[in-house]
């Protein structure tokens, strides 16, 4: 017997592929939802383009002066080079200490001098303004934000994927099997939720070291509990449904019943939970970066940008804070509104 037939015949109003199609149509009717979808797609496009090196691959180039002002402010802002330069006057002439009697490199001083003359050192023209301003090294905030979206989105998506996978798998096991398996997993759940989240994150960070993968793992390994709770409840509900009982009657195996039959019927819950986690993790990454547990130094994320910018508002250089904050807010808003719309579309009971 083919699967759709079973599901179509299943009473209880679980979403079927037909319902997915209806939900999709309902979603398309919601103009706000469509707009949000476009925003999310656009961000993903930017992320992919950045990952492929098509845009912002040169984000590290120092194209402006320190804290170059945003170009649109040029008329308002008195562009001065106050910070650059500082108080270094060390190129002044002086008699250098002679090291030649002790220097292991002394025998080749002449060669060294000759070769130095042949080395070209590129000098960069630094502009006073940049489209959305520059950071303290004179890097373009716009390019940095684009590059940052790559990392932040990757972290959010990958960590949410891991957390959802773990949560779904464990929830399915606990809900479906019950008994000892359930007891064991409930215990694990209780242990994880009894420890304050901050401590859990700090502990995992201490154990796992630093790096992109580490952050994804930290977030994924600590964030699965919510999904687990919901999926367990879903499986508890569904395993007694007639379509599952029917499948058992005709000898369908446990694995197929768990993941072939029940999972598709609960996938709307998974989808909603997944997008909620993406939002949560993008925000948590900021806090991790603030605590110095963020991505490596040669990588930029919105979190590291905001952590860098924490003192810049007082300095009057608000653009990095504003641009990174806004970039993040727009994406997170879009995902959240889209999630709402999805939930409504999938679960007609709510409006």
């Amino acid at each position, binding site marked *: 017997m083919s699967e759709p037939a079973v599901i179509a015949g299943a009473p209880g109003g679980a979403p079927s592929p037909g319902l997915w199609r209806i939900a999709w149509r309902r979603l398309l009717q919601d103009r706000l939802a469509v707009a949000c979808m476009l925003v999310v797609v656009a961000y993903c496009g930017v992320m992919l383009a950045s990952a492929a090196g098509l845009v912002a691959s040169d984000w590290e180039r120092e194209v402006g002066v320190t804290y170059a002002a945003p170009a649109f402010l040029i008329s308002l802002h008195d562009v001065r080079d106050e*910070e650059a330069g*500082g108080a270094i006057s060390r190129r002044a002439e002086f008699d250098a200490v002679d090291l030649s009697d002790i220097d292991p*490199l002394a025998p080749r001083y002449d060669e*060294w001098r000759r070769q130095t003359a042949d080395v070209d050192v590129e000098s960069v023209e630094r502009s006073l303004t940049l489209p959305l301003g520059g950071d303290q090294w004179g890097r373009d905030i716009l390019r940095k934000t684009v590059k940052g979206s790559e990392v932040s989105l990757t972290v959010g998506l990958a960590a949410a994927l891991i957390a959802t996978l773990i949560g779904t798998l464990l929830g399915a096991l606990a809900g479906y099997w019950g008994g000892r398996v359930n007891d064991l997993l409930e215990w694990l759940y209780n242990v994880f939720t009894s420890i304050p989240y901050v401590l859990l994150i700090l502990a995992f960070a201490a154990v796992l070291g630093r790096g992109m993968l580490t952050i994804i793992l930290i977030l994924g390994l600590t964030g699965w509990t919510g999904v687990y709770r919901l999926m367990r409840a879903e499986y508890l509900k569904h395993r007694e449904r007639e379509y599952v009982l029917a499948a058992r009657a005709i000898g369908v195996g446990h694995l197929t019943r768990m993941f072939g039959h029940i999972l598709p019927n609960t996938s709307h819950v998974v989808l909603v939970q997944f997008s909620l986690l993406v939002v949560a993790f993008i925000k948590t990454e900021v806090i991790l970066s603030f605590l*110095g547990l963020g991505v490596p*130094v040669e990588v930029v994320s919105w979190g590291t940008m905001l952590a860098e910018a924490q003192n810049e508002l007082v300095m009057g250089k608000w653009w990095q804070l504003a641009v990174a904050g806004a970039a993040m807010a727009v994406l997170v808003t879009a995902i959240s509104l889209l999630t709402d719309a999805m939930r409504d579309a999938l679960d007609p009971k709510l409006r």
Partner: protein
Amino acid sequence: MIDSARLPGALLLAALALLAGNTAHAEQKVLRFAFRSVETGFDPQRVDDLYSSAVNNEIFEPLLEFDYFARPVRLAPLAAESVPEPEEGGSVYTFRIRRGVYFSDDPAFRGQRRELTARDAAYAIKRLRDPRNRAPYGWLVQDALVGLDELHDEALESGRFDYDRPIAGIEVVDRYTLRLRLKQPDYNFLYRFTMPQTAPVAREVIETYAEDTMAHPVGTGPFRLAEWTRRQKIVLERNPSYRGRTLDTTWADPGDPEHRRVIADLRGKLLPQLDRVEIYPMDASQPRFLAFMNGEHDLIQEVPVTFINQVAPGGRLLPSLEARGIRMQRVVPPEITYYSFNMEHPVIGGYTPEKVALRRALVLAHDVDSEIAVLYKGQGQLAYGPVPPGVVGYDPDFRHHEQDYDPARAVALLDLYGWVDHDGDGWRDRPDGQPLVIDYLHSTGATAREAAGLWEKSMRRIGIRLVARGVQFSDQLRDRKAGKYMIAAAAWAADWPDAQNFLALLYGPNAPELNDNRFRLEAYDRLYERAAMMPDSPERNRLYREMSRLAIAYAPWRLSEYLVWTHLSYPWVLGYLKHPIYHTRLEYLDVDVATRAAAQAR
């Protein structure tokens, strides 16, 4: 949301009412300021952090101090009557304790006035070597005083330190005389007795509070601890049993307007003048800075460099702040920040020309100009040698081009010694063709991360691959100790202002603890040993210069900069002169309550 908008107004009124109530008892002279970081506690022998020590220095009195005015700094007696002269070629020092100095009252003294004696000074020194105290500054007297190490070793065995057994190294001659005998001559030994770690403590107090000595400091100094909320608020109040002092202007420079101001501020006053000092330890720099700017605090020491251009762009105080009477002092403290190369690492360590060439090239390629101008907002001077300004033995003429940022010379040097790209992947390799990857170790702070990013960028510019590894503080210590790094960010603040305190970091036999990158050069070690036996003299300075030359030629470090710190105070803070060694000298501070009230009314 609508409701919450109205909320601040109501609360503001309540807050104003509260402020008005506070001004009622304004006669008390109260000073408020912040620490940049948190304190640990106030048992002078058991702590090593800067901020606990700063508080201990106000509560306890070490035998010696540094004069308030003298620059370069100069030893002066404090709990001792005079600065001892070295005897027997610098291996015996005899302290005469000042008479009539009393500890502040405490229940441990059972209602008796308790005079300071030589016994208390001896007890404090022994405490540094009692294993139970885990004294982080135990090394001050380790391997120095005759018989003390033996006491320590026996205590390790028996679990009990025998304070009562007399030893030859610490001799209490009479009630007011303490004689210290060293295993070998040391002309810098006296500096140790300016530190709160050696400050006399009363044995009965220590024994009464046993495990709680951190919260019960009882000293002879101008202040005593009134309240303490750990890592939040430290309140000192004037010690009523303190003998009181007047300003000693012997070493003041009459040509220095700052000195003249301080002398005018404090003329004829019995010190201390402050009744109460409230200190707030704060990790975050934004609130610390803003608390000063809006007058919640009376002074700010070490303005966060990120905000320096908000108060003093280009090293000059903003006119708007000057109009408010705010005063600025800029001081280079005796400390160095540097990057340490692991001298035992098979790739980056070693003394052959090609290894020296690699390190020298890394030094030249590291963009120290940007580090100073951008990361430290111009608040630093390029460091030419391991001995910073303000330290005995500092040589302002010791300058050269080997610590410059000069990528062209770096590239030429690497090419010359075979550190070139062998396999065509765009990155330089070792001379034998093996790939070259630099492992850079740093801690997780924001500045450390930025500095690491700058290293990564600088190295990429000359084709060297560098992987920065940010780890938590304890892991950083672990990896440095185990030698699991190639370059590590480091800093050293002077314990005492003599060049030796810095040059000791590269002395071979000090490896691996003090000399933690394990630099071992025989010529250097011999110079160090000769200098250690000498009093301050031009001859010793010549040896110091030789050692600095070797440190530059062999490049065990990338010296980066000597930082300049800015300190600000409101006009009602009197007598404030930032000392390069002391964090604060609250004893010399005063507050003009009327001026403050007038300013706040405006």
